[in-house]
């Protein structure tokens, strides 16, 4: 290799590393600051804390209105699990229909489904709220969870349609010759073969439901039903004043752990999911 090439390569590396440090510095700073005594969070910009304490975790964990963060985490996990089940089942069914079945108006409904991808959720917001309110669902998890069972996340339907279309048709045809019905084909062939796409769906459903704030703000009214994201908001007061920064940073740190674990254990699926659909962010 020529010296100039080596120089260019090292410069590129250096630049990429510098940019990378800049990218994650705020997050690393948050994690480290959460272990600093409250009065040092403000003055200390460095990454190596001069004193380490877990007081912030103790004070933050106490939570809000007598409900601890343990309860908030349990609530979030519950919502996420149910949402995953709902999304995976309903989106896979819709995607199978769009990708493989023949029915009247298929093209039309497919275009409609794709159009809902671009529809801002705010247009349906008020009537949905009124609807759920007349059902007596406001204050419960139903307004958040029921839509998941009705395949309202068009992103995932689209992702799964793309994936199922790419599967070889021969296996299904063979199964039909062997006397397998549509349901059999779906359960025994499509679902197992589409596993990578279903994992992507499950992953992003988890992340978005975990991070969702708007729906939780609208529909969750009692502190004992709050999710982690809804509860974190209570650290930032109405005028934007924060009384307990240490606690806020400590609980924020805890709240991002699930995303980290998922990302690093299933990175491959993330990259696949993003490149095939351009999932938001």
């Amino acid at each position: 290799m020529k010296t100039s090439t080596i120089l260019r390569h090292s410069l590129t590396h250096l630049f990429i590393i510098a940019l990378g440090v800049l990218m994650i510095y705020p997050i690393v700073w948050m994690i480290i600051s959460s272990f600093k005594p409250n009065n040092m969070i403000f003055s200390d910009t460095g990454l190596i804390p001069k004193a380490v304490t877990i007081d912030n975790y103790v004070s933050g964990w106490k939570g809000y209105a007598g409900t601890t963060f343990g309860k908030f985490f349990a609530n979030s996990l519950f919502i996420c699990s149910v949402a995953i089940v709902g999304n995976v089942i309903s989106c896979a069914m819709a995607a199978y229909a769009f990708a493989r079945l023949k029915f009247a108006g298929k093209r039309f409904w497919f275009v409609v489904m794709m159009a809902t991808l671009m529809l801002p959720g705010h247009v349906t917001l008020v009537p949905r709220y009124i609807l759920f309110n007349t059902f007596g669902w406001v204050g419960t998890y139903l307004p958040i969870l029921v839509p998941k069972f009705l395949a309202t996340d068009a992103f995932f339907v689209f992702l799964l349609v793309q994936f199922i279309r790419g599967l070889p048709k021969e296996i299904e045809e063979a199964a039909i010759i062997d006397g397998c019905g549509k349901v059999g084909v779906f359960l025994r062939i499509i679902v197992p073969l589409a596993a990578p796409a279903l994992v992507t769906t499950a992953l992003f459903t988890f992340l978005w439901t975990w991070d969702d704030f708007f729906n939780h703000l609208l529909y969750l009214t009692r502190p004992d039903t709050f999710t982690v994201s809804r509860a974190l908001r209570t650290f930032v007061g109405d005028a934007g004043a924060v009384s307990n920064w240490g606690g806020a940073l400590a609980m924020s740190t805890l709240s991002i752990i699930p995303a980290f674990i998922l990302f690093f254990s299933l990175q491959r699926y993330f990259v696949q999911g993003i490149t095939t659909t351009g999932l938001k962010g």
Partner: protein
Amino acid sequence: MFLTPWLLGFLVLTLYPMLYSLGLSLTDYDFTQPDSTHWIGFANYQKMFGSAFGQSEFTASTGETVRVDPYYMKSLSVTFTYVFVSVPLKLIVALGVAVLMNQKLRGVSFYRAVYYIPTLLGGSVAIAVLWRKLFEKDGLVNGILGTIGFSDLPGWITNPQYSLWTLILLTVWQFGSSMIIFLAGLKQIPQEYYEAASVDGASKVRQFFAITIPLLSPVILFNLVMQMIYAFQAFTQAYIIGGGRGGVLNSTLFYTLHLYIQGWTYHEMGYASAMAWVLLLIIGGITAVIFLSSKWWVSYGTGE
């Protein structure tokens, strides 16, 4: 049968609410007093845009005097500034980093993961809380600027001149998804094109504009549309960082935030529905313009 859940969801949770909200937008519906709802025609729309025509109040068809919304135009301009600055910046950064990452370098997948982390955590309240802390008067950013010799630094969040820019910076910081899509697009470009261009003596910069950009244009279009639609609907960051309101002097009063405040703080749900429909028209209109213009700048490589 397999389509039932989706069809039910579409009819009950999308189509019906859409039409319902169009109807509501012509009323003064307040969900705490649903019985006193009046048909007010286009008064909600007049309330929105009245201030643009110098109106401060007008008489609705019910005979009532209605004050025009003094903050609507502000929320529109905040949102437009946010979308039209943050989206192009984000795509430029994403493309630049993707090009860097497309070289044969050791540890590229590790770097890619690092760059994706802010996006991964992007919409979370935790990051919004962190951002507020970073850009406060005594936050980390000023701490670092202070140590390298700056003084008299403003509170970036509390100064209306800068607060929107901290939110734009937050958005640009989360360029990970666009970067990964660009990277996938770059990998599809055959190396021979670059080799041929090198033989012809084209510089790297010229190669970038003559080969990379045109061949990547469908991916650019895709990223542009998705990010634009997404940016118009931004809410969480503005809500948390602005403390549940539009920040100081409404400098970060995003459209969706204003809609939420009107609908759920003031119970003006008819008005909120009208705002939602205008948002739909704006997003639809801009998407249509981008698609129509795309035939001038997007090449699908068929004519070669």
